[in-house]
């Protein structure tokens, strides 16, 4: 067991941090960037590609860097530190991750190569209005007609769905949930984008007989005639995205706490700086406790993914811990700032907004806790260094 980053990982962190500091070291730049479509900076996206960040988790033969979940976590944490609006988790980890996991070799190369190069943005169109955090599709159905798949139904909210060049769309088929590639300029595709509260973009994606390409091979006997159920792949890709979001949240919480501590050290009230008020400094100390516990859990979940352990269970743990910590730290960061904390002109409220968004994309803390609760009676104690989190090897 070893909790130390190696030198390559430290180099990666430094490089990404440097790039993002240059881009968003001034919070005003981020504010301006998210104010205009597409809600992020295409140049920064390109620079991330140049650095290899956008191909980080993909195999080299697919155009990627062949790195792993630890490296993904490092990037995500650094994104969170400046709440960079580029869709790293959404596009690379989640949508790209699905293509990498399910796609044929040709699909992987066709989609992941341009993604890694920064030439395209991917989005995973899976959420459906009126329900929540599922691994299956119900509201969009797929039918095959003369060798062409056509999708019909509504996906919303789809993060970065209006900007995306390629959409990975989940759809109900006989036998489960299948995944499809849909081009942004496909016929019968209507996308209505809008900003989310944290400056991200989301969209309503309406499909009306929209042509689509099945992601992955057909399965079944005789060379494959059946469409495979991909809900387990969705579960796993979402778990990896939850872990990445956990690391992103840690980065955001770290900055929120640092900003708050700095404010307490410098802001004067009643003739003294706020750090003379013990009730406030103790609350900052509690924020630190939440942060470090969340950091440990997010880091560990990345290591579980790296070790080939039960990534779904680990992601639930990370989700629960970072959800609780994110709410605690997000609320307290504003409260300890007082009035300025709720203004858009000051940075800390944007961190709270981003933490709130992360908390609702792929399952909140209560949701994760309920999944964990359903299993607690099945084992006596948890060993985070043992099964099912580490694979015997």
């Amino acid at each position, binding site marked *: 067991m070893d909790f130390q980053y190696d030198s390559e990982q430290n180099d990666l962190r430094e490089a990404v941090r440097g790039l993002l500091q240059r881009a968003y070291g001034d919070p005003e730049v981020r504010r301006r960037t998210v104010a205009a479509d597409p809600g992020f900076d295409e140049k920064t996206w390109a620079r991330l590609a140049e650095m290899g960040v956008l191909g980080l988790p993909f195999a080299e033969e697919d155009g990627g860097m062949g790195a792993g979940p630890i490296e993904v976590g490092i990037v995500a944490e650094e994104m969170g530190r400046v709440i960079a609006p580029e869709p790293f988790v959404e596009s690379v980890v989640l949508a790209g991750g699905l293509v990498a996991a399910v796609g044929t070799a040709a699909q992987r190369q066709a989609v992941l190569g341009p993604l890694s190069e920064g030439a395209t943005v991917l989005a995973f169109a899976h959420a459906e209005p009126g*329900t929540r*955090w599922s691994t299956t599709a119900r509201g969009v159905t797929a039918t095959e007609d003369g060798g062409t798949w056509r999708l019909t139904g509504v996906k919303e909210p789809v993060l970065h769905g209006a900007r995306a060049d390629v959409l990975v769309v989940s759809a109900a088929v006989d036998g489960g949930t299948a995944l499809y590639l849909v081009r942004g300029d496909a016929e019968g595709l209507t996308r209505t984008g809008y900003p989310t509260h944290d400056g991200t973009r989301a969209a309503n994606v309406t499909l009306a007989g929209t042509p689509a390409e099945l992601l992955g091979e057909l399965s079944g006997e005789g060379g494959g005639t059946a469409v495979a159920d991909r809900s387990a792949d969705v579960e796993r890709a979402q778990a990896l995205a939850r872990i990445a979001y956990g690391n992103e949240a840690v980065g955001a919480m770290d900055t929120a706490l640092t900003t708050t501590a700095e404010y307490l050290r410098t802001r004067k009230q009643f003739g003294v700086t706020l750090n003379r008020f013990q009730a406030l400094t103790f609350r900052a100390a509690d924020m630190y406790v939440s942060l470090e516990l969340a950091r440990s859990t997010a880091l560990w979940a990345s290591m579980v993914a790296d070790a080939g352990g039960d990534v779904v269970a680990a992601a639930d743990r990370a989700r629960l811990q970072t959800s609780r910590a994110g709410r605690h730290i997000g609320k307290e960061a504003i409260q300890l700032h*007082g009035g300025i904390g709720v203004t858009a002109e000051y940075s800390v409220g944007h961190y709270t907004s981003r933490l709130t968004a992360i908390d609702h994309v792929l399952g909140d803390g209560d949701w994760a806790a309920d999944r964990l609760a359903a299993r607690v009676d099945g084992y006596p104690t948890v060993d985070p260094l043992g099964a099912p989190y580490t694979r015997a090897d």
Partner: protein
Amino acid sequence: MRLQLSPEMEAFRDEMRTFFTTQVPAEIRDTLAARRHLSREQYVQAQRILNAAGLAVPHWPVEWGGRDWTPLQRHVWREEMQLANVPEPLAFNTSMIGPVIAAFGNQEQKERFLARTANLDIWWCQGFSEPDAGSDLASLRTTAVRDGDDWVVNGQKTWTTLGQHADWIFCLVRTDPTAEKKQRGISMLVFPMDSPGVTLRPIQLIDGGHEVNEVFFEDVRVPAENLVGEENRGWDYAKFLLGNERVGIARVGATKKLISQAKQHAREITVDGTPLSQDPRLTARIAELENELVALELTALRVVANSADGKPHPASSVLKLRGSELQQAATELIVDIAGPLSLASFADGGSEVPDWARVATPEYLNYRKVSIYGGSNEVQRTIIAGTILGL
């Protein structure tokens, strides 16, 4: 000791309920129910309807439109108004400057301002907070220097809520910089927002909305007759006014309304085919919140019942503190019910996400303010620890 409302109070409650749900336009109440911002015109329209019926300033002296109600009547009036989604009469007018002028203003000021203040013919805003003062209100720096028949005001105010709509401002200014205690040497001036030298800068909040402002004063000339009460007694008036601000700040009716909406929304979300409203964790969370709210309402009623002699009940400090926490908890509950739909904050046409889910997070973020403004929860704890517990 008796739980039931008297038949007279029951009738009073019915009267209020009927009025609010039938006399205030549905459009205004629906906007508030949908938790969307009201226009200036809607505020004015609603308050004038209330005022015409004697329901805008019942707590004022009878001479100026008050009703001489019992504290319980006022409580019921406010609760029913909130439950009916009727916008409350503008606090700056009816709970703040109005009562101050009625209590401390001269006869000319009363005649000049009170009726128009009750009717929202004048829209008032508050010039108290300053950027470097925060919770330490008394350390304000805006000055007013006497020059002939005028005061000349220079300085800056901030957190001026709805200042963009305001006709007039009531302002704390330092008139005696040599006073020994910083609380002395402060006076209260009132003047039009379009006075030369007044500029207003909007402050955007994290929900994207514009409800507060910075206000700058550069050599603003204010006639001496616009001094309220006595020179250098402004701090006393501010304390009087902030005491009024705490009335009704528990906002039990508004939070009840949020919870009842939350229950409705939970029926609209399904998880694996089952309505979220049947999820045991969610119902347990609602039950806890509702119980806290009942406890708060009962505490408000206890305070009301025991403060008929005009002295505030010690437990009244609980109302702001817990009231703000429960408002925040209710907004958080709605975000969590919306789940992934809560991301569609600024969706417009072309979205299938219901309106309530869109506004959920902006509202939640905006409501972080309620534990900060009007005496932060830290200030409330200081009061409880000091005044009640003697610590």
